[in-house]
């Protein structure tokens, strides 16, 4: 099967072209297959958010090729082939919860009745039925983030890009949201690219964890997570889970050492 996302020797420099000040991404090669759940993990400044944004054509790579569903990233964005969730919910405060979820459908010109039907369906999916007419400020942080997920899924994109979506939540809410995201992922059969800096979160959610390192931002290791789905509380307490967490942690430490080598040279 053709990959959903394919990155071929992608570089991203910031600053003047002839003498860049930062190498945000260096020689990124990655293929993401349908229905995979990929986590990008690494220290801050390793370019994981930039990488996510290049996939979404919100940042243009300096060189290399990014394709989404076998099309250039730009074309895929124009075709609305992915949904985006940020660390903050970024809900429009003047819109009700339902109207927020309907926003992308409105932009795509979906008729009103269909919009409302799908908006309600998505709110059911994230278990927020009954909150349609509430305003964002009336909801807790976790609920707001669920609205943001419903909004990203409203037009049924095949790809979901998530930039530390649960980073601002407390540990308990975060674990609940993790479980809920896995359920939604399996129900909707989407491919997810998920940026995080929490090791247990990456292990619990992903089918593969992509470990990145900073300065220059690059992929140092890709770790397949062989925990069986569906995953639940027991998964978090299984020995294999801890082994994998240790594996990712060591990979992160190793990539950190590589960075020091470069700086010493």
């Amino acid at each position, binding site marked *: 099967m053709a990959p959903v996302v394919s990155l071929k020797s992608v570089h991203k420099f910031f600053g003047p072209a002839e003498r860049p000040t930062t190498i945000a991404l260096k020689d990124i090669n990655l293929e993401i297959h349908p229905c995979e759940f990929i986590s990008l993990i690494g220290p801050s400044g390793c370019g994981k958010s930039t990488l996510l944004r290049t996939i979404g054509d919100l940042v243009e790579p300096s060189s290399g090729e990014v394709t989404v569903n076998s099309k250039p990233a730009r074309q895929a964005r124009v075709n609305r082939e992915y949904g985006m969730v*940020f660390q903050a919910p970024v809900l*429009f405060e*003047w819109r*009700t919860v339902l109207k927020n979820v309907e926003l992308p459908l409105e932009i795509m010109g979906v008729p009103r009745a269909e919009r409302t039907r799908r908006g309600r369906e998505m709110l059911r999916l994230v278990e927020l039925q009954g909150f349609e007419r509430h305003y964002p400020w009336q909801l*807790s942080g976790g609920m707001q983030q669920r609205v943001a997920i419903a909004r990203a899924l409203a037009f049924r994109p095949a790809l979901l890009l998530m930039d530390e979506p649960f980073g601002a939540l407390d540990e308990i809410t975060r674990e609940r949201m993790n479980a809920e995201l896995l359920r939604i992922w399996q129900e909707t059969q989407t491919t997810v690219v998920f940026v995080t800096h929490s090791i247990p979160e990456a292990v619990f959610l992903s089918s593969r964890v992509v470990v990145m390192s900073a300065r220059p931002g690059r992929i140092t290791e890709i770790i397949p997570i062989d925990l069986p789905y569906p995953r639940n509380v027991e998964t978090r307490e299984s020995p294999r889970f801890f082994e994998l967490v240790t594996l990712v942690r060591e990979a992160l430490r190793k990539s950190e050492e590589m960075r020091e080598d470069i700086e010493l040279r």
Partner: protein
Amino acid sequence: MEVSLPRPRRLLRLSPAISVILIILSLAIAWELIKLIFNLDKRVLPHLWEIAAAFSQPARRGGPPLFNVLLEAALYTLRGALLGFAIGAALGFILGTVFAHVSLLERSLVPYVVASQTVPILAIAPMVVIWLRGSWLSVPVIAAYLTFFPVTINTLRGMRSPDPRAVELMRSYAASTWQTLWKLRFPAALPAIFTAFKIAATSSVVGAIIAELPSGIQQGLGGAILNFNQYYITGPERLWAAILMAALVGILLFVAVSLVERFALRNIVRAA
């Protein structure tokens, strides 16, 4: 996150109507006290009841009471102010929106917009009157000159206010500039725009009154103020009455804009 802050305990719990009356009363007492303590005569500060009484007396021998004269003048001026406000608000909104989208125009034109406001309106007004051949239109044009500025600046600021991620979100939907404007920038800018409208509402009245002077217009509050200025020594309370009327027109416009604002922003809760 739901956070409930403890409300500060108020010393007095009063209905808004009663507190307004109390404030007016204390201002009136302060007025009379200052007059008493510094022994100010009628020409410096007339008694409040003298001003009140002046409203019911004829402005000139055999004419209608001053109140009727001033009310008519106020309505006349209000017309110019309202049209000026509408023109200025529309112009300001369009300029602010264009500047928010075209930074080249913003950088090159905003300095002139600012400069326009440093020129005293008194210097501009006679020119406008001559350009418009002394027609009544110079009144709304001059009022608009004063009102477009705050609206331009606040529209620009408001349109730029959305979270950068909200802009990215619209981009991820491949939303057009037009859609981003109407669905994101405009609603996000509304609180700032209404703040500007409230400032503009009061300055439009000032603009209309000033514009009436070089235009030689007698029917408005500008004419009345000029007229009573000349007779200040013999009847200071009439000028004070005219000033009071001008203030009332300004307050009326301000309150009207506030009511529209409260309706338009009824769903947006601002952090206290």
